[in-house]
């Protein structure tokens, strides 16, 4: 074998699994050697005898000796993942792709727009940013979910709201009796922000339809195209720009993304598909 084997995973011990919602669990792991990644990058997780699938960590990029990944039961590998218990050994390849260029966010208002399970990778971004909270002017979090019970990380939101540079706004598509926050699609939260949009940076992560309308509203409000960061989701397989699954025009989302600025991809046809 010449050079290093780019397909060979590192081993991670699964310590425990926590249930976030009926379909979402968080997996707490310890890598065999410290694992370095940038927030926004993704990894391929292997369940032996089952296969591998791409996820973004949901724990801070500052922490190298532990990792958390929040996974929604959606396909074959995730279903098998959900059956796992602590003690199991998993394989992890990566990290892959480009993450968020946090140095470009310094001194600015940062708007973080997330929906559904898209909040999981944004937790990684937020935890990483909050480690150096004072470097950012203010962090405006706008999160949406279908119903109040679909919000994951319930305890974490209390911590978040306590940070002095954090403004936390949440909305649900359909409220129930106890919900005292906003009701409506996630873009309605943007209209509540008191921000100089022309100078702000924005991060969008969630289902395609939410990303589309979220981005368009941000642009309308005045956020510059090169300051809108989109975390694109595709069916990534090799992570190395070779296997073809995540091709988006002449980009491979796995190696050229998954984080793109709107400016970089706006001329690519149908980026919201």
């Amino acid at each position, binding site marked *: 074998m010449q050079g290093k*084997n*780019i*397909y060979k995973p590192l081993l991670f011990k699964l310590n425990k699994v926590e249930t976030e919602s009926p379909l979402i669990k968080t997996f707490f792991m310890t890598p065999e050697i410290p694992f370095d990644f940038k927030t926004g990058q993704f990894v391929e997780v292997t369940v*032996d005898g089952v296969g591998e699938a791409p996820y973004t960590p949901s724990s801070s990029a500052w922490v190298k000796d532990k990792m958390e990944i929040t996974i929604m039961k959606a396909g074959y590998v995730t279903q098998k993942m959900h059956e796992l218990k602590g003690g199991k050994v998993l394989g992890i390849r990566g990290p892959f792709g480009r993450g968020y260029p946090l140095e470009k966010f310094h001194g600015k208002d940062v708007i973080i727009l997330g929906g559904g399970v898209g909040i999981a990778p944004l937790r990684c971004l937020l935890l990483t940013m909050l480690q150096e909270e004072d470097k950012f002017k203010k962090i405006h979090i706008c999160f949406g979910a279908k119903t109040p019970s679909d919000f994951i990380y319930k305890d974490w939101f209390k911590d978040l709201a306590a940070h002095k540079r954090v403004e936390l706004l949440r909305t649900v598509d359909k409220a129930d009796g106890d919900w005292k926050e906003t009701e409506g699609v996630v873009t309605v939260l943007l209209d509540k922000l008191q921000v100089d949009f022309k100078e702000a940076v924005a991060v969008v992560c969630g289902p395609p339809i939410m990303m589309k309308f979220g981005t368009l509203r941000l642009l309308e409000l005045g956020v510059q195209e090169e300051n809108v960061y989109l975390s694109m*989701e595709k069916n990534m397989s090799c992570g190395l720009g070779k296997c*073809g699954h995540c091709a988006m*025009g002449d980009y491979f989302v796995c190696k050229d993304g998954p984080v793109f600025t709107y400016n970089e991809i706006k001329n690519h046809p149908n980026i919201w598909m």
Partner: protein
Amino acid sequence: MVKIKKTRLKDFIDFVQQEYDVFAPTEVGKKTAFKKIDSAFEIIHDIVNTDRSPKEVFFPQSEVLFEYGKDGLKTPERKEKPIAVWGLRHCDTSSLTMLNKVFSDAHQMPDKDMFKDPYWKEKYDNSLIFNQACNTPLSTCFCHWFGRGPFDKTSSDIFVVDVDDVFLLEGISEKGKAFLAKYEKAEQATKEDEAKITELKRKAESFLAEKTDISELFEKIGKLWDEPIWEEISGKCVNCGACTFVCSTCHCFDVSDEGKKGKGKRIRLWDSCMFQLFTKEASGHNPRGISTQRVRQRFMHKYNYFMDNYGVHLCTGCGRCVQVCPVNLDVRELIKKVLDYKIS
């Protein structure tokens, strides 16, 4: 340039086999493909395009990446000799150089080693490529559209011409020249022998159908993404994927696991952008859920995106896709349609 009598080819192949495993066009069931041969007698010489493309020599349809079990991960060690490929026509030789860009070119990425595929490189980097002049191109061939031709010598180690009762061999790369120099039994080719090449080349080129000027193809196809032409082109396509499997440059694959809990292997398998599941995400969302989108992706990748990324069309004009398509879609007709298309 040296020559080897056809009756003495076995001796030469035996010589190559001292150092290399030799792959050559041969019969595999009812089909023809590049397979490892034991003796020169297995080689089929008059075949122009094997049914299966030679990409499988370096990029097998199914390849074990590693095995795992109680002892952890084990990468299979390659114990075989390096690979020599005999009988490649220039279309196939050039397809390997395109695949090499994908599997070993870092393509503007900062951590270059991260993008080098060790399984491909171990085989391809140590190989010896015999590129044989194509004396009788088929009616489905269109290598000349891409500026190449049946007697093109580039991208190979040794150029071979089948002339009457001899093979003429010319070292092209340093590696090829050095290898030929070691074979002492070859005779020097004469001026008369070399003169015959010119005549054979002229004759071979006369077999080629009319050339279409594709210099505008890259730019033109790049403007057609939103045009209804794709519905017209994909109308007949049944998304069987045959074109992608026989294609010498298609290289999409899937990484998959076989085995039970605790013991198994990871394999890499050819996949196809023609299949609906190829892009389907776990959430159920599918960016290329309908046939038209997939056909467009394949053509855009071949004649626009790959050019953007690597400066060459991802097509050699070998014509295998034209031969196998069950609904008679002819890529040459599709290219002409694109070039003639009036943007609405």
